[in-house]
């Protein structure tokens, strides 16, 4: 009798242990597409997440940004998109309309998100679809500022960073004439996502113009004339024509191009317009290469005109795919990544979160932090560009191509400008209802 009782005890214990064990072993796998090069750091943050949530296993995937949009849309169309995806901040609206993302309003209502709640997030409008639903949560925010070499500018006779567009032009030319180095070195080339798109928009916005604006009647319209577009082209063309932006910069296209960084680090160029991640790169590479020299860099806001100095809120968002089968776990991950600790304080430290209470550049190197902090206060969201009927990728590519054809001398700025404006007008008419 006793032995059997013992057997029964063991049997029950074994069965109970098996249940508990399998429940502990049973893990929900979710896939997280993260496309930045800081993948090893993010993996560490995900490990912490897995420790805190033992029932969830995160598989990290990566696709280059150039291919990320088409890949995600293809997968979403067949129901094979990853559970959580890092998206460009301007994608959620179009992706939501395509049925590729799951609206998250109900999840926000249930648990809220962020250090101080959903209403402390910036750029929320960009995450909403035309139907008013929220399709993604802003993850990081960045903007461009002008990083410059104080010593070079001083040698050219400028103690302070120029405040207007004309001053910038003069300063760049002075650097070239007095020191032989590049003044404002910017990528002037064409590819799918050229940097010149940003620089042109900064110029136009500071004058109160914009490619797409929303009228009081709720309809979108083109708030810039062909002449004004041409003025932007001519402005940047001058740098190339006079040589203070070397012609070779026509063959580079992205804002973080190694040529730009190298030129700044080596002191071959005086001014660059870059996002904070690249600014950090410039400062850190300099410190690594010349550990005993003083860092000559500082950051300043872009030149201002009648509408002030304007840059854009860039950044990434996190979304849940429409075909995800593990929505709760995906939301858990997004909430985890929206807290500064530990993701941003320990691992993903070069980036800033788009939540008002913590929107500061304290973790940036001290040389350039003030400039970026100033600039982000003056930044605007893409607004009508992203909310309007003309897709940003289309305009981004078209503007870059038009500028490129002017820079290489193929078209006059007037011709390129009117062709560009016509193309945008056609898209606008086609998609506006």
């Amino acid at each position, binding site marked *: 009798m006793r032995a059997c009782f013992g057997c029964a005890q063991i049997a029950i214990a074994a069965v109970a242990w098996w249940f508990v064990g399998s429940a502990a072993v049973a893990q929900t796998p979710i896939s997280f*597409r993260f496309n*930045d*090069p800081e*993948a*090893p750091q993010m993996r560490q943050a995900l490990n912490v997440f897995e420790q805190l949530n033992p029932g969830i296993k995160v*598989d*990290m*995937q*990566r*696709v*280059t*940004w150039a*291919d990320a949009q088409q*890949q995600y849309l*293809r*997968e979403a*169309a*067949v*129901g*094979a998109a*990853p559970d959580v995806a890092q998206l460009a901040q301007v994608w959620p609206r179009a992706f939501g309309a395509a049925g590729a993302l799951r609206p998250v309003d109900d999840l926000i209502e249930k648990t809220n998100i962020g250090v101080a709640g959903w209403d402390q997030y910036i750029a929320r409008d960009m995450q909403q679809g035309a139907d008013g639903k929220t399709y993604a949560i802003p993850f990081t925010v960045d903007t461009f500022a002008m990083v410059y070499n104080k010593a070079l500018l001083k040698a050219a006779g400028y103690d302070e960073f120029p405040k207007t567009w004309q001053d910038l032009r003069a300063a760049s030319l002075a650097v070239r004439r007095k020191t032989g180095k590049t003044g404002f070195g910017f990528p002037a080339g064409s590819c799918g*996502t050229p940097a010149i798109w940003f620089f042109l928009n900064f110029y136009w916005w500071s004058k109160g113009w914009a490619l797409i604006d929303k009228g009081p009647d709720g309809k979108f319209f083109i708030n810039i004339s062909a002449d004004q577009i041409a003025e932007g082209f001519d402005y940047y063309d001058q740098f190339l024509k006079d040589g203070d932006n070397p012609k070779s910069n026509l063959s580079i296209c*992205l*804002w*973080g191009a*190694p040529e730009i960084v*190298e030129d700044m680090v080596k002191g071959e160029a005086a001014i660059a317009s870059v*996002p904070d*991640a*690249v600014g950090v*790169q410039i400062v850190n*590479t300099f410190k*690594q*290469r010349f550990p005993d020299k003083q860092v000559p860099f500082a950051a300043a806001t872009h030149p201002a005109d009648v509408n002030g100095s304007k840059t854009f809120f860039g950044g990434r968002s996190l979304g849940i795919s429409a075909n995800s089968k593990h929505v709760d776990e995906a939301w858990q991950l997004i909430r985890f990544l929206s807290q500064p600790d530990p993701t941003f304080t320990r691992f993903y430290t070069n980036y800033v979160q788009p939540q008002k209470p913590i929107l500061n550049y304290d973790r940036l190197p001290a040389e350039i932090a003030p400039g970026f902090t100033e600039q982000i206060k003056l930044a605007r969201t893409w607004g009508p560009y992203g909310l309007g009927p003309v897709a940003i990728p289309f305009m981004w590519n078209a503007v870059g191509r038009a500028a490129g054809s002017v820079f290489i001398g193929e078209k006059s700025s007037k011709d390129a400008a009117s062709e560009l404006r016509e193309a945008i007008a056609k898209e606008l008419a086609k998609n506006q209802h």
Partner: protein
Amino acid sequence: MAVVAAAVPAAVAGRRRRRNLLGECALLFLAFVIMLVLVYPTAWIFIASFRTPETMFAVGGWVFTLTNYTHLLSSGFARAIFNSLFLCATSVVLSTIVAVSAAYVFSRLRFRGKRPLFAAVMLGQTFPWIILVTPLFILFARLGLLNDYLGMIFVYVSVSIPFSIYLLVGYLEAVPRSLDEAAILDGCSLFQVLWRIVFPILLPGVVATATYAFLLCWSEYLFALAFLTLTDLKTMPLLLNAYFGENVVEWGNVMAGSALMTLPTLLLFLPLQTRMTSGLAAGSVKQ
């Protein structure tokens, strides 16, 4: 008189010898320059992969290091090497067998519908791959072939068949039909003629074709990007392209990865290159 008469031809012969020597030197110099141009770019990548990213592009003061490689291999590149090797080797073997079979039929036999069929094979090459990606993606998704070795092998075999058949038909032209006829008279079946008699002579052409098919698969990006999203299945070109970020280029990984991507093909085909050209002459003297 006789002395002078004898001296002139000697002088002429001497001048001709010197002209020949000059011509030889010029030719050798030209060959040297060309070889330098062919090899320099790749050699530079190998050298750069042993320098730290900060000093790679500088004009002096290089710092020698192995960390590019250790860092690269520990970040999943080793797995990508295996994936690429497996996919490409399997695809090439399969594609070669299929292509040789078809090429033999096109080259040697006459049958109804031969011209349209051959034209159809060639038509397969006329489409740019970019527009094949989206429909195939949808098809593969429906068939469950996404993130699957089988799907990728199917893709790589299919894209290498058209030109393989075409190239092999060309190579088969140089293999004399008399060999076939003799073998048939001896009582061999067509199957045996192909694989026992013709194939060994065709080997150099097969090696050249297989090399091209391998290299095509090795550096293929578009299809691999669309069909392989699980990190464990990715091939080398995907990882290599990913090191070119928007804000930063991971130069150490790029150089080491490029070197690792170029090295296997060099090692694989170094011993094979003699096979590619020798032997074609044997037995192919045009009657």
